[in-house]
């Protein structure tokens, strides 16, 4: 099997067993260095003061004064704001410790059904993507990285798809997520579609990998909304295991990060 795509922001981070805790600070530091993305990130890391839950991690960005993303008049509000991200492995270069974070770009944040379609309708369908790339759709404030506070104790359901199915499955998956079809409270973090050489992978991330009632309900909802054949293999993987596997595969040892 192909090595899993990097979902970690700080490759040099934790020695095995030590949970990376300073992800937010590192992310911000990297962002400052990454002038190419800076404006765009600022643009999209908007603050919200409204009725929706406000995450602590937003506070680290509170110096950035941006208008909150809110539903427009007569638009249909979503339960949460979401942010689209895109990442692509740079051709010809191995996945280095920082390339995941450097290669992931925010596309934008939306607060209503109509705003979702504005983005989605002007993005290519995942099945038409070329190369080794991913779309991520996460709740605003949650980075699509294993070490994010919302993800660090979490995991994901993974479904491998033969070529040709990704676009439709991805659409059904994110519509179910945006429409709150999973009924697991605050547990959902986001969804990913990964376009690979021979297959495509969709996954949905939740906060608490140890919560079996939640993960079972997510699995059953996935089966329903994706209309999967009964023999479809679904695999649950904790992010802790993903981090370990990634470090083993890349022979990483702690070399710099805290």
């Amino acid at each position, binding site marked *: 099997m192909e090595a899993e795509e990097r979902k970690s922001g700080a490759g040099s981070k934790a020695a095995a067993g030590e949970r990376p805790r300073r992800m937010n600070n590192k992310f911000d530091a990297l962002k400052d260095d990454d002038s190419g993305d800076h404006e765009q990130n600022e643009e999209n890391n908007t603050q919200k003061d409204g009725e929706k839950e406000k995450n602590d991690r937003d506070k680290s960005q509170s110096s950035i004064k941006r208008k909150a993303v809110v539903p427009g008049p007569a638009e249909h509000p979503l339960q949460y704001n979401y942010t689209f991200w895109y990442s692509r492995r740079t051709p010809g270069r191995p996945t280095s410790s920082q390339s995941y974070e450097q290669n992931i770009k925010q596309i934008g944040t*939306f607060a209503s059904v109509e705003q979702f379609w504005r983005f989605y*309708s002007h993005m290519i369908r995942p099945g038409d993507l070329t190369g080794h790339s991913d779309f991520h759709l996460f709740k605003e404030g949650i980075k699509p990285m294993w070490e994010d506070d919302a993800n660090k104790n979490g995991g994901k359901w993974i479904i491998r798809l033969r070529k040709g199915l990704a676009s439709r499955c991805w659409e059904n998956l994110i519509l179910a997520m945006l429409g709150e079809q999973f009924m697991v409270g605050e547990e959902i973090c986001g969804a990913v579609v990964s376009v690979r050489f021979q297959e495509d992978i969709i996954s949905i991330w939740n906060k608490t990998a140890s919560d079996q009632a939640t993960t079972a309900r997510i699995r059953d909802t996935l089966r329903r909304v994706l209309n999967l054949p009964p023999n479809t293999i679904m695999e649950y993987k904790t992010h802790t295991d993903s981090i370990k596997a990634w470090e083993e595969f890349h022979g990483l040892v702690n070399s710099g990060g805290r």
Partner: protein
Amino acid sequence: MSSAATYFRSPPALIPAKRLHLPEGVALPPGDYSTTPGGTLFGTTPGGTRIIYDRKFLMECRNSPVAKTPPCDLPDIPGVTCPNVDEVRNESSLVHADVEKLGLGEEAQFDMDI
């Protein structure tokens, strides 16, 4: 046996029911078909009300005018984001979602005529 006999002899009890008296010709309180008159056990989600949409409704919103305008801050990522993919996208989505779309959106009908 004796317990079964006891069962059959026990006095019947009415199943509790709520009867709502509405004026002639009025089926439900106007304008609010998502609420059971008088409230229901399932009227609230534990932990608070959630905004739930099904797939069909979300797909219908796709045809609203605002949904067709690209966001002004859409980053230009070649091969990924494109302000001009509208036409292509609507056609391809018709192919894969024709069952859901036919008869729903005016747009589907329109595309079919062409």
